[in-house]
């Protein structure tokens, strides 16, 4: 573990330009064998054959200006700014695309080279509007910078400038074509890295312009990176536009709060107006490279929302109101909790905390409940219903799973993903997979619905919802045959009376497809196995993990240290929450919990039955998130005393007796542990909004009022403690042999109605998204996907919405006919806090009825 950053401020003007940042992969590796020596500006340099003049010059610290060149993108050498003079060469050569030749004598600053650069600068500027005063790029613009460094101060151009119409590319990006210098970095990024070639050069010659097909808005997940790549002010950040000048900003390193990859970011804020204004990627080759997704980049404006609560609220006459004068809210909460504990014992209190909070908050949260209140009823798992404390992920830790998807994907040649729609769950990991595919890696995917990889994967198997275990059982069976390793003795019992064809039929996958997949896995070299949360968090989760680990073993993906399976997590600090011991049965570092307690589901059940009296929910809209919405509502209604701490007043908050406003991610210093176990520090960018407190401040205030002798703990101090306590003493590979697993024997025949499937969607509409205008504008409308057969059977008309109905409630939404949705299923992706989709899954229900609206 690394010590936290302490106060790094990166001045905006000192930060590297996107173009200078970082090389994804060395170019032209095929010729990287022999050394080549050349002289650049009188200095001798030896590089590997194939190194370009520009790269070799960089080694010597000689900067050659360039627009179109970017180390992560293909080379087009079209801006002609990097031209250098090579002795004996009649023409100037583009240094970005020309490999260094043995004995070459290169001049980057000869009169000829300088003159050529001046001419190119003049040509680039003749049609540029020079509207720097109103351009967002002003102050960190390569055109400005090179004009100063390499340009001339006059232009011979005397004709009207060329102008272009302005398109609307959607809520994130503003395209001002008149400023464009056609370096095509944006085009190449979207095509080569993001994998959706939405931008292209249209028309030709002097009419060339960057645009989308029929001027449609951009729909990708990574379009924001084109803003960083654009060396001029052509592609600018629509969210940030006109809100500040670059020199007003203060940038601090942080970690993206949206998904479990934990992309490294820079938060740009303006202290004077207490605003977080912009997020840009912070290059980290081990995590996100130089990229971030659009959700991470544009999903922050909720922190500036006027709807943020700025004082504690207490329920009076059925409504949350600011406390009466002189009321000490903390004192009030502690008095209530003490009374409940005295009357019903500490087990009558429970705490739930969001897995998006910092390690420090999570650690103190469990310590507060266990040590101060004396209750073990804590959990962080609020988005799934599970009766058992143990789940597939925890089990995977026990058997020594590698659980380093980010690191593994980076070097894998074959990637197998089971049970995850990765592009919607962990977008940056998707980006890295796409890059691996470009380098010849093979993608194999099994998923229960029409996932995003259907077209990209070399093999794609779609099994019936919930049939992961059946699918894996057959796959393992076939894999062992393909590998010809001999059937493992410990699994003979598992496979007694096993009929692979029948089980394959039960999970809805053709035997041939399974065989092809098994063959691809058996022949894979350097494979990585990824298991999605849908697969390991289900009822069969632990069995699934066992079978998955067996598969890794059969493929030889294990050693004395670990077994090569990688489980995926969704939330920014899910892994931290586990390692901090925010679990009913495990403490920090996965030590046995003391005292033990109830998990989320049992806490809510107990509260709904009146056995558990008080709930403390930190940072999550439980009612919107918990799949059994009715149970969550009952629990909160029935409980005597509910305390909710969060940023906004949401459904859960409205059910609380006391609401405590807390600081947002930019106002909290702390660490996050990503899906690969990497602990990353986020700095506090702004002080907490007046009237709000950080979770750490809140927990310490409560603890002190309880009489606990907690010193004033700063985040670094807490980090020092948790670093000692919570580092999980990971067992070495505990897989001495193949792990037996259970295959269900009963057939799960559909009862009646349609099976409702849920899944993640990147641009959905959770509470924070609703309060972030740009993200809200980008969010996809909530729809139900139905198979063409079901649409036909139900006689639905696409013109009207449909009503999806279950005993728990009903929602009215439009539907789309989707040939990838299996018949008998209705797929609703994403969280829509304004619609309350989880009403439908109340009481563990998964069956719904569909009628046309108005019937």
């Amino acid at each position, binding site marked *: 573990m690394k010590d936290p950053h302490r106060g790094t401020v990166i001045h905006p003007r000192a930060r590297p330009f996107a173009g200078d940042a970082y090389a994804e992969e060395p170019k032209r590796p095929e010729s990287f064998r022999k050394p080549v020596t050349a002289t650049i500006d009188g200095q001798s340099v030896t590089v590997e054959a194939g190194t370009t003049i520009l790269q070799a010059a960089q080694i010597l610290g000689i900067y050659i200006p360039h627009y179109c060149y970017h180390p992560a993108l293909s080379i087009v050498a*079209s801006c*002609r700014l990097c031209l250098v003079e090579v002795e004996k060469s009649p023409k100037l050569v583009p240094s970005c695309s020309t490999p260094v030749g043995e004995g070459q004598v290169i001049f980057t600053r000869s009169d000829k080279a300088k003159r050529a650069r001046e001419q190119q600068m003049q040509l680039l500027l003749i049609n540029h509007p020079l509207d720097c005063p109103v351009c967002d790029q002003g102050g960190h613009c390569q055109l400005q910078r090179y004009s100063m460094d390499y340009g001339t101060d006059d232009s011979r151009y*005397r*004709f009207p400038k060329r102008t272009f119409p302005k398109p609307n590319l959607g809520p994130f990006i503003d395209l001002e074509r008149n400023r464009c210098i*056609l370096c095509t970095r944006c085009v190449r990024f979207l095509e080569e890295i993001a994998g959706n070639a939405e931008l292209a050069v249209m028309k030709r*010659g002097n009419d060339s312009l960057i645009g989308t097909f029929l001027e449609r808005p951009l729909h990708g997940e990574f379009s924001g990176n084109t803003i960083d790549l654009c060396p001029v002010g052509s592609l600018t950040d629509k969210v940030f536009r006109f809100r500040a000048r670059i020199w007003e900003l203060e940038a601090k390193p942080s970690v993206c709060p949206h998904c479990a990859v934990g992309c490294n970011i820079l938060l740009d804020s303006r202290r004077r107006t207490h605003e977080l204004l912009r997020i840009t990627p912070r290059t980290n080759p081990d995590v996100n490279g130089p990229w971030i997704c659009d959700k991470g980049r544009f999903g922050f404006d909720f922190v500036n929302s006027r709807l943020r609560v700025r004082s504690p609220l207490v329920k009076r006459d059925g409504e949350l109101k600011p406390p009466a004068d002189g009321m000490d809210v903390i004192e009030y909460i502690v008095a209530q909790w003490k009374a409940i504990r005295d009357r019903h014992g500490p087990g009558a209190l429970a705490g739930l905390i969001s897995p998006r909070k910092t390690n420090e908050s999570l650690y103190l949260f469990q310590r507060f409940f266990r040590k101060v209140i004396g209750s073990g009823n804590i959990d962080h798992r609020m988005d799934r219903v599970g009766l058992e404390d143990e789940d597939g992920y925890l089990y995977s830790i026990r058997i020594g799973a590698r659980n380093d998807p980010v690191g593994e994907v980076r070097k894998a040649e074959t990637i197998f993903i089971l049970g995850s729609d990765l592009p919607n769950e962990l977008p940056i990991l998707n980006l890295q997979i796409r890059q691996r595919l470009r380098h010849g890696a093979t993608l194999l995917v099994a998923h229960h619905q029409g996932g995003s990889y259907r077209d990209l994967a070399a093999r794609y198997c779609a099994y019936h919802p919930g049939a992961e275990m059946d699918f894996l059982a057959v796959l393992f069976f076939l894999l062992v045959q393909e590998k010809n390793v001999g059937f493992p003795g410990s699994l003979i019992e598992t496979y007694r009376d096993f009929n692979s064809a029948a089980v394959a039929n039960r999970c809805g996958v053709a035997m041939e497809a399974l065989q092809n997949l098994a063959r691809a896995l058996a022949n894979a070299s350097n494979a990585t196995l990824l298991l999605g949360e849908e697969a390991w968090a289900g009822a069969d989760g632990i069995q699934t993990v066992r079978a998955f680990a067996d598969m890794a073993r059969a493929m030889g993906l294990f050693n004395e240290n670990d077994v090569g399976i990688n489980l995926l997590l969704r939330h920014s600090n899910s892994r931290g929450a586990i390692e901090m011991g925010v679990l009913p049965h495990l403490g920090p570092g996965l030590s046995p919990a003391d005292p033990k307690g109830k998990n989320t589901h049992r806490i809510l059940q107990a509260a709904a039955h009146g056995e558990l009296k008080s709930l403390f929910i930190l940072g999550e809209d439980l009612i919107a998130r918990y799949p059994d919405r009715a149970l969550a509502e009952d629990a909160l209604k029935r409980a005597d005393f509910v305390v909710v701490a969060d940023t906004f007043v949401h459904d859960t908050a409205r059910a609380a007796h006391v609401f405590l406003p807390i600081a947002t991610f930019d106002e909290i210093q702390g660490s996050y542990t990503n899906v690969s176990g990497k602990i990353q520090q986020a700095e506090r960018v702004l002080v907490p909004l007046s009237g709000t407190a950080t979770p750490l401040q809140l927990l310490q205030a409560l603890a002190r009022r309880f009489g606990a002798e907690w010193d004033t703990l700063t985040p670094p101090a807490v980090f020092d403690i948790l670093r000692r306590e919570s580092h999980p003493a990971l067992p070495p590979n505990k897989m001495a042999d193949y792990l037996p697993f259970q295959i269900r024997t009963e057939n799960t025949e559909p009862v009646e109605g349609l099976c409702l499937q849920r899944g993640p969607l990147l641009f959905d509409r959770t509470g924070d998204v609703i309060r972030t205008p740009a993200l809200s504008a980008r969010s996809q409308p909530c729809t139900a996907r139905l198979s063409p057969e079901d649409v036909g059977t139900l006689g639905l008309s696409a013109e009207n919405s449909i009503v999806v109905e279950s005993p728990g409630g009903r929602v009215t939404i439009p539907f789309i006919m989707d040939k990838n949705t299996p018949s008998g299923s209705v797929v609703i992706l994403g969280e829509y806090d304004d619609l309350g989709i989880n009403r439908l899954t109340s009481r563990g229900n998964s069956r719904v009825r569909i009628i046309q609206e108005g019937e």
Partner: protein
Amino acid sequence: MAASETRVLLKDLDLTGPRDLDSYRRMGGYQGLAKCLRQFTPDRVIDEVKQSGLRGRGGAGFPTGVKWGFVPKTSPKPKYLVCNADEGEPGTCKDRVLMQYNPHSVIEGCLIAAYAIAAHHAFIYIRGEFSEIAEILERAVQEAYRAHLAGTNILGTQYSCEIIVYRGAGAYICGEESGLLTSLEGKRGNPRNKPPFPAVEGLYRAPTVVNNVETLACLPSIMRNGAAWYASLGTEKSKGTKLVPVSGHVRKPGVYEIELGKITLREIIADLARGVREGHTIKAVIPGGSSSPILSADQLDVPFDYESVAAAGSMLGSGAIVVLDNTVDMVEFALRLAKFYAHESCGQCTPCREGTRWLVEILNAIHEGRGHPDDLETIQKLFETELTSICLLWSAVVMPVRALIEKFPEEFRTAIARGTPDFSRMGQPGSPVSVLAE
């Protein structure tokens, strides 16, 4: 005695329609291919072509056999032959004649070249506007397939080669060989940086030879009659015959075939094309397609071959001669040329994208009487960027326009003087140079 044509490629040409396979074979067609496949190794074919002295007829005049020799023999990648039938330069209309009236000569040439470089795919990239000719070619290719002259086991030998006729979509830049390859891959036809040259990294990044239609059409007779026969035609460095399309102000424009170096430019114009119209005089001549520098009327006694035309300060290029008589306004002519190249610039690299339009703006202003005394200096400075572009399109406009200004400076100065504004009014509304003050 008036100079005359030497017909090899155009021998016995029947202008009533395309020559079909049977009559082509009766005239010795496909004997050259048969000789290659049955008697020669690919290396021997390359040697023959080297000895024949055949040079590329597309414009650059690079020795064809040498170009083939650049294809790496050890490369594990497939090799491709591409026939550049994207004939689009103003004044050049020679390839279409071959494809239209003697398509099998092109097809046989493709097969010989493909065999020589061990390619099993030959693409004929034909400009989209030649739709009728593309159909002729396609029919001829089908004929060849039916007669086992293309496809698998050609003429019963082990050699197989597919021929694909691919139609371009109407961009001059796709006649530039790397732009052509990019277009053939299904992408926007942007030229590529060189090196790597197509022979090493061409179509689909595999070794590729791109040859012009006329070059390929020369191969059957070279193979049939031997390299020595071909080398006996022409001069020491310019062997063989050349198709010469003559257009402009002549009385009999058309495509002529001449023996290189054995006839002067003036003879071609006077004897073959019957000279300029009655009462007119030649003002200048473009000797090798619109991108070659112009020659003035006193430079026409140059023998028509690569070296002599180059020595005269121009280039043989595609061999297309455009004759301008004394009625031509050189400013307007320069403007017309510049407009063509501005319209056809692909737009990817800075000097060409910005430079072509700027040039059009200046020439247009001069032509319309809005010239500025600095304009010629501006053009001269702009032309300093000639060699900084990715491909030669920018040079292709710089070269002729520069030559026009050098050879006819007075016309440009007069036009500018006509348009030089009254500087006392500079910056006022309506002033032609009001933009200067803005």
